[in-house]
């Protein structure tokens, strides 16, 4: 359908659209017009992705001055989905406009692990190993040595790329990861470096959050994107956590020990180099004297060698000019060659944000390699003494640094440079296996962050940081408390940032947490053919005793028994798959063992098989696989899972895999966690967000996320059991997203288990009746209805405009009208 949306020619690849899709695109367009940020909530399964892509590419097409569309996703499968939709949209545009409509270059960006086509390298097990193996063959000094006849294996694809690919333009098209690999194989060019190279020519980029948010990665990848670009964060309900994680570092005793071993290795290397290649060390020293800014690191403003310091599992990278240090070392070669070399040596940039890095020379006391090594040794030793605590300590970075200064006489300033200096050293020493030095890099990361920031962070040292309770395993955490730190540069740089997800309620909290002011802020409800979600708030068991996972009640035998009874009941009446979410692993373990004693599990097993999520990813994947098989073959299964686990975040239980989702309890965070306490304290003092509000918001957002797992399309249906008396309270309930609340009648509240079972039976019977295709179509908009809607909207707006001050209404670019649509 080609429609005229508020004056914009939109290419929408389907013949019909839902009314909420229309509204969504309208809101989106308004924020693009106003060149502002927006916050949009639309239920899952209503075609968010296609709306986003369709509107923004159409907008780009109509307004060529708009830069790239940068689409950030959380996972590789989501990336695939996005590219698929993009292909459909562009395909449709081509049908409509001919070859003119096809002029788009879109590509996915991912780590070497996902893009490498070298047979040997790709066989490596994990991401770091692939990166290492690649660097072994592509680092500038390795290539130089090979050129000089010194032997060493080179990657044929990289050589192919550096010979031709770096200048060649890529033909227009839409390249998924597989397409890129295919293209690379065909041409003999390395897809990874090719993708990195053509970022600047692409119209649409699809990549992981970290590429935008983690300063270590973003410093190299996203630095050169034009400011007019539109940045989309899809599934962004957890974006504040991603932001804080990107700037947080954990150090435990073991990693500190490993760091000292690394230092030993380095110092012996330094000593060896001193003997054999004194000139190199001197060159490095000279560079450092002249300051980071002038030393060819200018573009990276601190981007020096190193390795992804693992925070938040950065989807590894490298690239851009980040590795200009290497280029500096091999200075003198021509422009193009430098760039290629730089790309190959690419390493993550400084963990601190570009704006916070001082444009100064590296302090004198760490310029010499051996001085720096002894400096780091002191730091590590100090950390080692600090981590040995018997009780929890929590302090501000300022206090931490002050104490450090008192004990070790190390100043704050060199700390800031630890990360850059270390990377420079590693490069000088020609280290490719950065993986081995990870612990040391972590320490440097910690030191840099703690030296740079005085606000928004907390250092928490806990004696029992490990997963096994009761074991003394101290851990030192540098926790970022302010989500806005990591994302602020993004908001400041790009014209429009779109934050969207199925669960963003309550909408007014996100702007506070992330520190931005959206011009559009809307939650769209779901247009429905039938009541496909049936939320039931179960507060009591059949014996009328309340059930709740409240701290003082959760161990109560009656609660455990009633939860068990509910489970048995559901196993009997719900077909195929049921997904249960518990509040934590420990609670799940506790309740499952009690159920075993009570014989609940045995009775459930008569009806359905039971699978459990564990902390082990492999085990969980296996369990999921078997769960799906059990659902497929009609045996029926129950999956017991944890609200903040991997399953709750990324696995879909659509159709028969999730006919019911049960929330046993409200998934509050562990409120005794010191990191959380520090964050709450910070939120209260800085943003005036009350602790209770934030905790409830966070719990309900997790809960909504779990609910969203089972409804992936409008023809799907699912039962939602909220089994906790606290869900009945208005302050909890009202924070659920609109698309759940619209189905939550008064009669669905405060039910007992048997009431709920009767209701569930009815619901399942109703939903099993065939869906009338005519009715389904009736709710959708075709070209005619869209036109009618357009007229209606414009009419309304004109009226509004004439009522208000006409010039103000026009200037607001629709912003005024949007405010009126806010749904709280």
């Amino acid at each position, binding site marked *: 359908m080609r429609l005229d949306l508020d004056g914009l020619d939109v290419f929408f690849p389907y013949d019909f659209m839902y009314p909420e899709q229309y509204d969504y695109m309208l809101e989106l367009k308004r924020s693009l017009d106003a060149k502002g940020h927006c916050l949009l909530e639309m239920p899952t399964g209503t075609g968010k992705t296609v709306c986003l892509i369709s509107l923004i590419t159409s907008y780009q097409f109509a307004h060529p001055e708009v830069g790239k569309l940068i689409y950030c996703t959380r996972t590789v499968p989501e990336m695939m989905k996005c590219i698929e939709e993009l292909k459909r949209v562009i395909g449709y545009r081509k049908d409509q406009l001919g070859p003119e409509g096809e002029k788009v270059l879109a590509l996915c960006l991912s780590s070497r692990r996902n893009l490498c086509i070298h047979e040997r390298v790709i066989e490596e097990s994990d991401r770091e190993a692939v990166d290492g193996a690649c660097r072994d063959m592509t680092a500038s000094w390795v290539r130089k040595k090979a050129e000089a006849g010194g032997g060493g294996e080179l990657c044929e694809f990289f050589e192919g790329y550096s010979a031709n690919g770096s200048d060649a333009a890529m033909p227009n098209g839409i390249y998924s990861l597989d397409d890129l690999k295919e293209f690379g194989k065909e041409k003999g060019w390395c897809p990874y470096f090719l993708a990195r190279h053509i970022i600047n020519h692409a119209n649409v980029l699809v990549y992981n959050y970290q590429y935008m948010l983690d300063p270590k990665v973003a410093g190299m990848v996203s630095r050169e994107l034009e400011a007019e670009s539109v940045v989309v964060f899809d599934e962004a309900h957890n974006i504040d956590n991603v932001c804080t994680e990107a700037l947080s570092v954990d150090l435990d005793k073991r990693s500190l020990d490993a760091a000292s071993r690394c230092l030993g290795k380095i110092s012996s290397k330094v000593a060896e180099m001193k003997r054999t290649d004194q000139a190199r060390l001197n060159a490095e020293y000279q560079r450092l004297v002249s300051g980071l800014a002038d030393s060819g690191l200018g573009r990276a403003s601190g981007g020096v060698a190193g390795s992804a310091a693992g925070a938040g599992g950065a989807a590894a990278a490298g690239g851009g000019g980040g590795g200009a240090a290497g280029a500096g070392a091999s200075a003198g070669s021509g422009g193009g060659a430098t760039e290629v070399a730089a790309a190959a040596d690419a390493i993550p940039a400084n963990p601190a944000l570009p704006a916070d890095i001082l444009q100064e020379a590296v302090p004198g006391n760490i310029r010499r390699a051996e001085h720096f090594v002894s400096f780091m040794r002191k730091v590590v030793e100090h950390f080692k003494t600090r981590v040995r605590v018997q009780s929890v300590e929590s302090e501000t970075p300022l206090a931490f640094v002050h104490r450090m200064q008192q004990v070790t006489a190390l100043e704050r300033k060199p700390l800031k440079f630890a990360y850059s200096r270390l990377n420079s050293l590693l490069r000088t020493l020609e280290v490719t296996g950065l993986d081995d030095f990870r612990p040391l890099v972590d320490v440097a990361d910690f030191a840099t962050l703690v030296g740079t920031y005085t606000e928004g962070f907390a250092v928490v040292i806990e004696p029992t940081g490990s997963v096994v309770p009761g074991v003394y395993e101290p851990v030192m955490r540098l926790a970022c408390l302010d989500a806005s730190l990591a994302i602020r540069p993004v908001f400041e740089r790009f014209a429009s940032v779109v934050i969207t997800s199925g669960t963003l309620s309550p909408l007014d909290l996100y702007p506070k947490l992330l520190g931005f002011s959206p011009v559009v802020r809307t939650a769209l409800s779901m247009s429905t053919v039938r009541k496909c979600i049936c939320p039931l708030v179960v507060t009591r068991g*059949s014996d009328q005793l309340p059930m709740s996972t409240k701290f003082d009640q959760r161990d109560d035998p009656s609660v455990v028994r009633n939860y068990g*009874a509910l489970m*048995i*009941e559901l196993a*009997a*009446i*719900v*077909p*195929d798959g049921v997904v249960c979410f518990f509040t934590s692993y420990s609670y799940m373990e506790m309740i499952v063992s009690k159920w075993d004693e009570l014989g609940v599990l045995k009775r459930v097993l*008569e*009806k*359905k098989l039971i699978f459990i999520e564990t902390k082990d990813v492999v085990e969980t994947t296996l369990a999921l696989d078997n769960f799906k098989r059990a*659902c*497929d*073959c*009609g*045996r*029926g299964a129950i999956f017991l899972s944890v609200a903040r686990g991997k399953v709750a975040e990324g696995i879909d239980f659509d*159709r*028969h895999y999730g*006919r019911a989702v049960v929330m046993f309890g409200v998934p509050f965070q562990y409120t005794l966690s010191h990191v959380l306490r520090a964050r709450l304290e910070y939120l209260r003092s800085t943003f005036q967000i009350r602790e209770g509000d934030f905790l409830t918001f966070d719990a309900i957002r997790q809960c909504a996320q779990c609910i969203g797992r089972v409804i992936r399309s409008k023809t799907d249906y699912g039962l939602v059991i909220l089994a906790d008396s606290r869900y009945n309270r208005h302050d909890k309930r009202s924070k659920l997203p609109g698309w759940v609340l619209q189905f939550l009648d008064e009669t669905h509240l405060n039910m007992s288990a*048997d*009431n709920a079972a*009767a209701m569930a*039976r009815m619901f*399942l*019977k*109703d*939903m*099993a*009746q*065939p869906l*009338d295709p005519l009715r389904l179509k009736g709710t959708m908009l075709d070209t005619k209805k869209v036109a009618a809607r357009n007229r209606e909207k414009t009419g309304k707006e004109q009226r509004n405009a004439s009522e208000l001050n006409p010039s103000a209404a026009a200037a607001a670019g629709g912003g005024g009208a949007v405010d009126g649509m806010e749904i709280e």
Partner: protein
Amino acid sequence: MDAMDDHDDNDGAGYAWEKGFERTWEGVEEDEHGNIKTREEGQRRNRRVRRRVGGESIKRGMIRYLYLAIDLSKTMADGDMRPSRLAVTLRIVQDFVTNYFDQNPLSQLGILVTREGRAEKITELSGNPKAHMEALTKDSDTKGEASLQNLLEMACTSLRAVPEYGNREVVVIYSSLSTCDPGDIHETIAKLKTHKVRASVVGLGAEMFVLRRLTEETSGDYSIAGDENHYRESLMAQCTPPPTPPGREGAMFADLVRMGFPAETQDVFPSLGYSGNRQELSVSGYSCPRCKTKTSELPSECVICALPLVSSPHLARSYHHLFPVPQFDEIPAAAPAAAAAAASAGSAGGMGSGAGAGRATEEESASSSYCAGCLRDLSGLPRYRCPECRSAFCLDCDMYVHDSLHNCPGCC
């Protein structure tokens, strides 16, 4: 939890507090004019709509070999239908079997059940309704779990031997929400597909993925019984022969099927004749035109020479599936009455309800319109008009004409 299970045998007359929630107020809806409609009426309209699909004449197989597979697992004892699912099922199956032979006199039926994870054959394929029902009522204990795979395997093995010209069908009545299988059920589904067995399912409770897949793969129907009426309706829908699947048309069909039209014999003294597989003494019977064996019921298959025995009215009855009554056009209540009234004038006598009634309609139809079937006043009601003879009917008569009579009284 299932306290109601103990009251299986007192026929629906349980105490009020033992019953599930009856939401009588939900059955009532208000339309846009403020008139109150009951849900039942809506359901009947829906049924009309459902029937519309496939109302045209399609090629249908007249000779069906159908296994009725009943899930007799523990879940059948559930009390969500009064008095129990089992009792309701038996009642409905009884009607189904009678109705099936009534509408498909040339077809055969057998009954399978599953319980305790096994499948059992209660009756072999045969044409005798009484024998089936007797066998089923005698052996209807519910026990253990159901096994869909075993059930389908057994049906498939038995149906494989059936002649090519017949339609192979399984109708499953499935009460459980899970199945306890020895192997991969999807292989069994593929097997059914290769052997061209059509599987339809009437489910109780909720929709199950395997059943959905089974019916989709074998192009059968899948319906979930909402209540007893819907249950009955869903099962009765299986009495109509399904359209011949595209792959089955053509060469593999035998053009001619040998059948016997036995003559009725009346003996002075009772003599031995076959009733199903059993011998009985009877006075009247039919003797097979080929081997002269006496059989007491038609339609059936001769026990000795396996000749299908039918009578000509049976054959004629099968025809209504091939030439169905055309779908009547719905005219909303507010439509001008004139056209329909004029049309109904010429056709009122067709119901055989007597000449007087016919005349009455003719006289009054000029001013307002009456149903051509029951002479009900149609003003203010939606009417249904036969496209051929343009007679108007009320909803009840429309249902009667299409579901039972299979002839438009106006047209004949």
